[in-house]
């Protein structure tokens, strides 16, 4: 691996990231992209974050979590409480709230991760599902968050820029995590837990860590959600939402961050495009799920990862990170 070339790719990626942002906001300001389309990008952003973070536990760690929305709820409520009760103002307060939400979700990740470790496969799936439902149940009965009547009046501070920043950070950290010895440890657990243990990988630690990191980013997305929509209902974070995120991950390809990005974006945008078909759009959506799975059981992207270096590197050279 050539150091200069690596530096070049990182620089290029950074430039493209920033450039894309300015082009996007420029187009919005110029009115080429209307408010409707521009606003649609915000939920797309946090759904990508949710899908990518779930992919960490689902695609890379190889578990079947059915309660991801629970972490999102923890992040959403925590950050909403933070903006309401903490003495910080404006943007600073908002970022602190987001961070607190994410950290709280990460702490819950540890709580779920620990008992879950004794179990595998479908039993673990059930524990995560149960956890999601418990969170929902508690939120429904908590008075200071409004219970079923909703947590209202959250300042609407999430805009395209915050979502973009959070999204880029999420993608960057998850990518760098996966392409490191820690990521390899996570993947080794997916591939063969017993072999991983005998390679000296502390599987319990890494499982809990992965749950926690995934929860962190889900919590971050939750915070963005809370400050985008301005009102939270516990029922939003039920099993259906967890499944919606899972579908995004599997359809995109488990173990492909690229796939999660594409599929989360598509699955958010597609129903919008199908609005004209009103009655049929859920039918089309469900048929699409079935058909894609039958013809591409490993998801659209499989485990393919998009890399800048793949575009520029000479053919056959696969040795770059």
């Amino acid at each position, binding site marked *: 691996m050539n150091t200069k070339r*690596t530096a070049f790719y990182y620089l290029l990626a950074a430039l493209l990231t920033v450039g894309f942002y300015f082009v996007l906001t420029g187009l919005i300001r110029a009115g080429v992209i209307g408010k409707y389309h521009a606003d649609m990008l915000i939920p797309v952003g946090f759904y990508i974050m949710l899908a990518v973070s779930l992919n960490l536990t689902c695609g890379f760690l190889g578990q079947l979590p059915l309660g991801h929305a629970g972490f999102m709820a923890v992040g959403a409520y925590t950050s909403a409480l933070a903006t309401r009760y903490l003495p910080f103002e404006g943007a600073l307060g908002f970022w602190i709230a987001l961070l607190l939400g994410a950290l709280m979700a990460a702490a819950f990740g540890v709580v779920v991760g620990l008992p879950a470790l004794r179990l595998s496969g479908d039993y673990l799936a059930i524990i995560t599902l149960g956890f999601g439902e418990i969170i929902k149940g508690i939120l429904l009965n908590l008075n200071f968050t409004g219970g079923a009547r909703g947590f209202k009046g959250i300042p609407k501070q999430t805009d395209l820029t915050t979502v973009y920043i959070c999204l880029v950070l999420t993608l960057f950290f998850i990518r760098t995590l996966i392409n490191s010895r820690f990521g390899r*440890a996570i993947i080794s657990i997916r591939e*063969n837990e017993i072999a991983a243990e*005998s*390679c000296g990988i502390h599987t319990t630690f890494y499982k809990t860590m992965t749950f926690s990191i995934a929860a962190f980013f889900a919590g971050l997305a939750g915070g963005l959600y809370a400050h985008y929509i301005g009102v939270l209902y516990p029922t939003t974070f039920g099993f259906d939402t967890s499944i919606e995120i899972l579908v995004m991950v599997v359809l995109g390809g488990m173990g492909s961050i690229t796939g999660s990005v594409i599929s989360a974006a598509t699955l958010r945008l597609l129903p919008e495009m199908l609005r004209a078909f009103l009655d049929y759009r859920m039918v089309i959506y469900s048929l699409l799920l079935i058909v894609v799975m039958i013809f591409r059981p490993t998801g659209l992207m499989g485990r393919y990862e998009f890399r800048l270096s793949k575009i520029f590197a000479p053919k056959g050279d696969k040795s770059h990170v």
Partner: protein
Amino acid sequence: MFDDTKLYPLPSGGYLTARDLDKPPILDIRYLGIDFGGLRALTDFNLIVGRSEITGLIGPNGAGKTTVFNLITNVYQPTRGSIILDGVDTKGMSTHQVSRLGVARTFQNIRLFKDISVIDNVKIGLHHETRYQMPEALLRLPGYFKREKVADQRALELLSIFDMESLAYKPAGSLSYGAQRRLEIVRALATNPSVLLLDEPAAGMNPSETGELMENILHIRNTFNIAIVLIEHDMSLVMGVCEGIAVLNYGKIIAKGTPEEIRQNPEVIEAYLGKGVRE
């Protein structure tokens, strides 16, 4: 001086080669035993392995050989007895801790990380040697690049033992059976072990491949100067490389000694080798 591969009995009931006689043994197993439900799968198992010894563990199918490996690596916890690894009692440890203390193994039914590349398989073995911290990885600080580079080089170096560098970027699952067995050995070596446990490394190989493997095993012992414990049913391999052999039957040791002694032992012939041992 004495002939350095000759076995010398120890008071504890074990054997050591001359070479390792003056050093504390790497593995000292005393009265090890495990029950599965009512089944006494292993009883009174004593074995001493010297620092650079190649020990064979043979015995009929179901005798408990793999079980011994599972106990040494703490995949199972023993019902009785103790395992002292380089002076440390491993009781109650978990598998990954034992691995860090220097035990590496291969599996009878291959357990590779099938969907990832060969080199990444080895780099997972190098996990603890690749010493950078989470922030370095997440923020892509220089330490990350430096150590990853070292890990890459080290992995390729290890693969070169079996001339497998050219396969480095193939998914491990796509390798032929023999290559997969060899990759498992490489991965085990990557954890920088002081004892290497090989469970039937020659299974599914034809005689000429087995011959190559024999040389490789000797080469590994000589370069890394580690102890190797080998389970194998292919007598040409066992007799060819092992200095000391222990024979298990029904969970008990029925014989210990040099290959020559084992070959002649009537009890072993009766229970295991059969009359017409062809090598």
